[in-house]
């Protein structure tokens, strides 16, 4: 498919991204000039050994952290140097995050967790006015990820796979442009993991959602359109998926 149609415009790119962690005297050069390009509607997976800096790269792409050098660009515009408020807003509107450990808020039930990005986006008054519409949207999403019967459950009452589905629902409720998934299957058994990947594939197909998925599992990575390997702080090997 990808080789027939003209190459879509790049969506999220990193230019010579470098990140070094300093701990007193010893410093770890995790990323040393990472150039990565994510095209619109692409499902990209990053593989690499544990500790190779995959999560670091993803955090930089998602503006959770700022690079020491290099740039992150969204639709060609640099975004990593923007003021904190704007970056907060971009995180809320443009990016969706899915983490290895699900990272749902334990005090909120699943539907509230799904709604939380919208609670952050809207003022109390606005949220109150639109609460029915928003709740409906959230429950639709939960139904879509197969959790229609779990909406009022607290995170500690459901299984890992269900948590990850809820986390995906949460990342989708803001209708993001890019989904950043950090080892979404890392904590799940193989079958459940496959289910999650299928869900991501579906989203990618149906909504043309751009996805960056980090994993250390090559069999999982193979489900993406394109795989890159991160090693020694650089994008080392590029492999286009042959459908």
């Amino acid at each position, binding site marked *: 498919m990808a080789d027939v149609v003209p190459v879509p415009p790049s969506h999220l790119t990193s230019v010579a991204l470098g990140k070094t962690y300093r701990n007193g005297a010893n410093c770890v050069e995790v990323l040393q000039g990472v150039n990565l390009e994510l095209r619109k509607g692409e499902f990209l997976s990053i593989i690499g050994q544990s500790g190779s800096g995959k999560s670091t790269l993803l*955090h930089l792409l*998602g503006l959770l952290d700022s690079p020491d050098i290099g740039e992150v660009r969204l639709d060609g515009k640099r975004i990593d140097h923007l003021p904190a408020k704007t970056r907060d807003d971009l*995180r809320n509107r443009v990016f969706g995050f899915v983490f290895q450990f699900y990272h749902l808020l*334990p005090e909120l039930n699943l539907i509230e967790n799904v709604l*939380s*990005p919208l609670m952050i986006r809207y003022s109390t008054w606005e949220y109150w006015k639109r609460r029915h519409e928003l709740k409906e949207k959230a429950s639709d999403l939960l139904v879509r990820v197969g959790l229609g019967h779990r909406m009022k459950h607290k995170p500690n009452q459901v299984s890992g796979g269900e948590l990850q589905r809820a986390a995906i629902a949460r990342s989708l409720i803001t209708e993001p442009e890019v989904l950043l998934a950090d080892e979404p299957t890392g904590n799940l058994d193989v079958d459940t993991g496959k289910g999650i990947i299928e869900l991501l594939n579906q989203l990618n197909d149906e909504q043309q959602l751009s996805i960056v998925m980090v994993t250390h599992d090559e069999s999982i990575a193979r489900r993406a359109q394109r795989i890159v390997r991160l090693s020694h702080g650089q994008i080392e090997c590029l492999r286009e998926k042959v459908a």
Partner: protein
Amino acid sequence: MYKFLICQRYLRTRFIALASVISVMLGVATMIVVNSVMSGFSGQMQERIHGLLADVVVESHSLDGVADADLQIRLAREVAGGYIEAITPTVEVYGMLNFNFAGQWITKPITLIGIDPAGKAKVGPLRDFLDSYHSIYKNGKLVRKSLRKPNEVPNWNLSPEAMEYRRDKIDRQKWYQEQLAALDREEAEKREEGSASESENKTEIQTVAAEQPSETVIDGVPVSEPVGDISEPAGDELPASPFMNPFDNNAPQKKEETDPYALMDGRIYVGIGLISYPYKDPETGEMKTMMMARPGDDVRISTVTAGRPPEHAPYLATIVDVFKSGMTEYDSNLVFCNLEELQKVRGMISPVTGKKAITSLHIKLKDPDQSQLVVEHLKSVFPSDQFSVRTWEQKQGPLLAAVEIESAILNVLLFLIIAVAGFGILAIFYMIVVEKTRDIGILKSLGASSSGIMSIFLSYGLALGVVGSGAGVVLGLLFVHYINEIEEVLTYLTGRKVFDETIYYFPEIPTLVQPSMIISVALGAMLIAVLASIFPARRAASMHPVVSLRRE
């Protein structure tokens, strides 16, 4: 929006937060209770000081006073008549009180205030301070009914009960003396020695306050040479001697000429602290008051004449009533006496014109709020080189200021309780922030701003403060409302009277709830809660999302 939801969830799920709510609540409740009781007491105290004095007091600097009471009153009425409701002249002077108790002579320094009780009752609620107008309750039960009707104008006559006591006592004394006289006669017949010691033993059993021989000496002769001479050196023993001799044969004879039970010319209302002392009942362990003298007894009063040089002026007086304001400063210092007798004894009545000198005027105003204005008016006729014209607050300024300082210090100390609660909040919040590190990272990854994270914890602190101080206000007000019931329970549990009405002269614990105090205490507590949460909230806000997200 998320701030409130999360804040509310944290409140509901963190029971540790309840601890800080409770500490805030207790602090607020304590402050409200203590302040209410303190202002209740101090309000009562001010009322008493006010009642004892008058709205405005004009005093001469000299103890000799100024001549012509009527003129002074007229002057005062001329310049401020429109404001004045009543004026009463008084003479205030220092003196000494002697009386015999259990064979010992008690001597106390006093401030002697000559008043006209009817006039004094018009400028202040004199009745409220006199024991015989009160019923006495103990543990809620009536022990003694009031001895006078509430509408009886205060006067210098004994209540019927006191009169009965006096008759009894005098009869008993007479009987003793007759016995002794008979014994003397027998002994004289037998010509034997040694009976003196026996009779001394007997006098020790019976309390004899004052005896008649001195009366004849002093009465009518204000400056009594013989007594004055002996009493000048070393206080107790020497002046006592003329009263101590119950064997003087002149005494009964003199009495028989007139009414044997007649009161002395001097009449006094004596402060309770001067004639009583508290002691612990060895059987029950209860605190009781031992009366060393009571209405109907005679005492000796010494003061100085208004002459130059001032001379010693002793005279005898009958206790007509016991005066109890609940203020130690007054109760163990003040003796009210009949004005005319004091003026006579002190030689303040001009032999030529018959005009009487006074040292001060007590003035009651129609509107007590105008006292400052009236003081200004009065100063024009009472020059400051001779007089001081003051409102009662000014006159008692140091005492009132002391109470104010006391309550301010107490408030500071109590506020420290809430500050301690504040540190509790700080510690607990800090803990919660650490515990919630991951959640903070999640919220940030979802787009929450640092200020948004901060406001979660600030509103959490505010919520704790609001809930805590709200509950504290309710608890405090309930406590104040039921304070007397609580006191009863405490008394029952401990077996000791917590609030002894015989000491304070209040039937109940006085309380005064000031809304402004409650509001400021509640706001203060909320402020402290918010302040205490600033530090943890800032820490939460500055937390790097990535660090927290890496954790499982």
